[in-house]
């Protein structure tokens, strides 16, 4: 079975859980013998993709030849198309991101990562319109698809749906769309109509829809008018860390201080203000606590200002977006990970926290709450209860210990291999039909 997979994030260039999910899923698929061709809009560092065969773009976007790197032993092949696509963005953010990416690329360029340097002159070719970008991605995907032989098209989230629809129609193959988040999760009730339309069309054109949780499945059914039989739930997994833990000193933080961690994009969807309100309540009872907010996002400056206005500025630390080792480091320091999301289709970060032996407190409005039992749960708006539970973990060591032990054990049961097997089963079902 060969899968033509359309995505746009892959480590290390990730802004949320989607890249992590694609990485974990494709790796597991390769392990169970599925062949995957993965089309990406951005180049990736080979260190993160050794399990795959990948295709990266030539110096110029206009060239329709793609450089091919082969890894002999594995089953996943990557195609990349230079693009500014970002999974969680709205057109308004696009211009801003455009500039950010240029900056980011310059930074990477200075680190001498060759594949990325090529991107520098490509950015000039971009037009400033995200919807046009999506169509460009679709056109490029179609060109790639013509050269490949595959059985099924698998598209991750709305940006790739037009590409998925086109490829599936052209090649006469079944289309599976994988919903990691919906416009309602990202924008609340203020949905972007254009994005909603793309999502809706993708879901209606798809032969099968994979939702990352029942929470998301319900949104797909009720908000997008899809019949229930078409939507299957495949939970995300988490990879066990193979390498030994990093032993950083707790720099700048006193050993008698407790650390409560927020890790994720600082956006409306993630509920940063509820985290601050709970922090304020915690600090009324307990003084030796620091609240670390790791991540960046459109609400970052507002959140910093809010912390200052609440008078807890000195207790809340902002780290900006963290990569690889830094994520590990911050998990090592944390006594509790809090995910106060207003709307979270799944939420891989809590699984990573558990993997790092950090107890977690998650909002009940998250898909991952469906699969985790050895965690604390709270309604995101109930900041009093959130503070109550944070304080309990900090004050009652047996709670911390029990959550950590059982949680770490439970998270081992959530493997990407199971997710990959479920996807394979869904593909098989489509083969029978065709």
């Amino acid at each position: 079975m060969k899968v033509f997979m359309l995505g746009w994030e892959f480590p290390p260039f990730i802004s949320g859980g989607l890249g992590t999910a694609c990485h974990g899923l494709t790796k597991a698929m390769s392990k169970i013998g599925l062949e995957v061709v993965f089309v990406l809009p951005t180049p990736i560092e080979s260190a993160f993709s050794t399990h795959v065969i990948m295709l990266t773009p030539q110096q110029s976007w206009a060239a329709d030849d793609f450089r091919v790197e082969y890894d002999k032993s594995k089953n996943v092949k990557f195609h990349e198309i230079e693009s500014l696509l970002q999974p969680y963005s709205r057109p308004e953010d696009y211009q801003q991101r455009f500039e950010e990416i240029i900056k980011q690329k310059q930074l990477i360029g200075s680190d001498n990562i060759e594949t990325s340097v090529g991107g520098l002159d490509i950015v000039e070719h971009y037009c400033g319109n995200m919807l046009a970008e999506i169509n460009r991605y679709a056109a490029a995907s179609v060109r790639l698809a013509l050269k490949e032989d595959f059985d099924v098209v698998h598209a991750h989230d709305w940006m790739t749906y037009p590409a998925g629809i086109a490829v599936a129609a052209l090649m006469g193959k079944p289309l599976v769309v994988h919903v990691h988040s919906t416009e309602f999760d990202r924008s609340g009730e203020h949905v972007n109509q254009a994005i909603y339309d793309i999502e809706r069309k993708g879901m209606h054109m798809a032969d099968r829809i994979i939702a990352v949780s029942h929470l998301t499945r319900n949104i797909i059914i009720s908000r997008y008018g899809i019949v229930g039989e078409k939507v299957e739930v495949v939970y995300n997994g988490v990879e066990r860390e193979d390498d030994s833990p990093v032993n950083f000193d707790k720099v700048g933080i006193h050993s008698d201080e407790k650390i409560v961690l927020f890790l994720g994009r600082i956006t409306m969807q993630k509920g940063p203000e509820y985290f601050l309100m709970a922090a304020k309540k915690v600090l009324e009872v307990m003084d030796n606590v620091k609240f670390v907010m790791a991540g960046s996002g459109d609400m970052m400056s507002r959140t910093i200002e809010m912390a200052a206005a609440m008078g807890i500025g000195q207790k809340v630390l902002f780290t900006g977006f963290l990569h690889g080792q830094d994520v590990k480091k911050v998990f090592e320091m944390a006594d509790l990970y809090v995910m106060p999301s207003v709307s979270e289709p799944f939420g891989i970060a809590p699984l990573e926290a558990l993997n790092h032996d950090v107890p977690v407190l998650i909002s009940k409005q998250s898909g991952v709450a469906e699969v985790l039992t050895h965690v604390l749960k709270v309604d995101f708006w109930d900041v009093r209860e959130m503070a109550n539970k944070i304080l309990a973990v900090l004050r009652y060591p047996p709670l911390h210990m029990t959550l950590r032990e059982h949680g770490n054990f439970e998270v081992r049961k959530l493997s990407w291999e199971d997710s990959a097997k479920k996807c394979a089963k869904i593909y098989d079902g489509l083969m029978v039909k065709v």
Partner: protein
Amino acid sequence: MDVDFIMPSVCFYFQVHQPLRLRHYTIFDNSPTYFDDSKNASICRKVANKCYLPTNRLLLETIRRFNGRFKIAYSVTGVVLEQLHKYCPEVVSTFDALAQTGCVEFLAETYYHTLSWLYSRSEFIEQVNKHIEMVEYLFGQTPRVFRNTELIYNNDLAETINSMGKFDAIMAEGADHILGYRSPNFVYRPPDCDNLKLLLKNYSLSDDIAFRFSNRQWAEFPLMADKFTDWINSINGNGNVVNLFMDYETFGEHQWEDTGIFNFMSHLPEEILKHPDNNFKTPSEVVRCYDAVGTVDVPHITSWADMERDLSAWLGNAMQSNALHELYRLERPIKETGDEDLIADWRRLQTSDHFYYMCTKYFSDGDVHKYFNPYESPYDSYINFMNVLNNLERRCVGAGVGKARVTC
């Protein structure tokens, strides 16, 4: 007639208990009211209507119908009686009516249904005495048979009970690992306790009624009174007594009315008494009629809970042992305050259910533990309990200071 042809007596004992559930209590709360009165009232009324009232009526009617030949025993905790008294006094009067028949025996246990024996012998004895007083006051009889919370038992408990000098027998789970090849259908004796007998639960036959009755996957489904009687009769010659110990809530609550459990129970005495050699006995009668056939040595603690038949449902994780330890650590300071309300609250917090809710065993699988749990997770129950305990400790410190001033 040959001894071999003696039919076994049937000894029913029902456990009646409802915990006082805590209200949602955060670290920011500061009021000394810990219990959720409205939830406790509504659960109490619900269980009364589904179980206590109909079952009491049924058994009362059965006792009258058989004119003294049908007998049963209860252990009713102080915690549930206080609630019944408050929320459904009619249940208390039906228990009283049962007591008046002379065919019903009431057993002794810890008033607050606690694990106190594991943590404080003096507290344990106080609670047992308080329970005995209650039974004497309400039902006009003095218990002579003891059962510990959740049938928690070992040699040490037998020794404690023996040394209290008030009891003829003690009850325990007839677990395979303590009996080995021996049958639970005889009266035994704990080691070195000449005046105390041991009644062991026949868990197989008891659980056929309590757990398997409505299980459609069970090969013996549906269980009818005549079939069950055949099983009892087949013990013929191989035992003196079949101890059927179970939660009273089996009738109408664990097994709903539509499973036919009431029908089963109303026909069972008739079926059993069809054989002229069969009879029903209360635990005290069993103790009087049958000699102990041997000694059962139980160095390790057993209970009637779960597959493990041990303490792991209440003491299986760090939260449970921490909560229990912190609670009993307060015994002296609490008692030194002499504050009756404070002491009563402390004792109500000892009810074993609070620790059962913290059990993480099987939690992921969503089994029976979940059904009886008012909390969404064991972690929530621990947090709630510890917040309450914190407040109790603060009150205790406050009360202690106040008292010191008075005595000065």
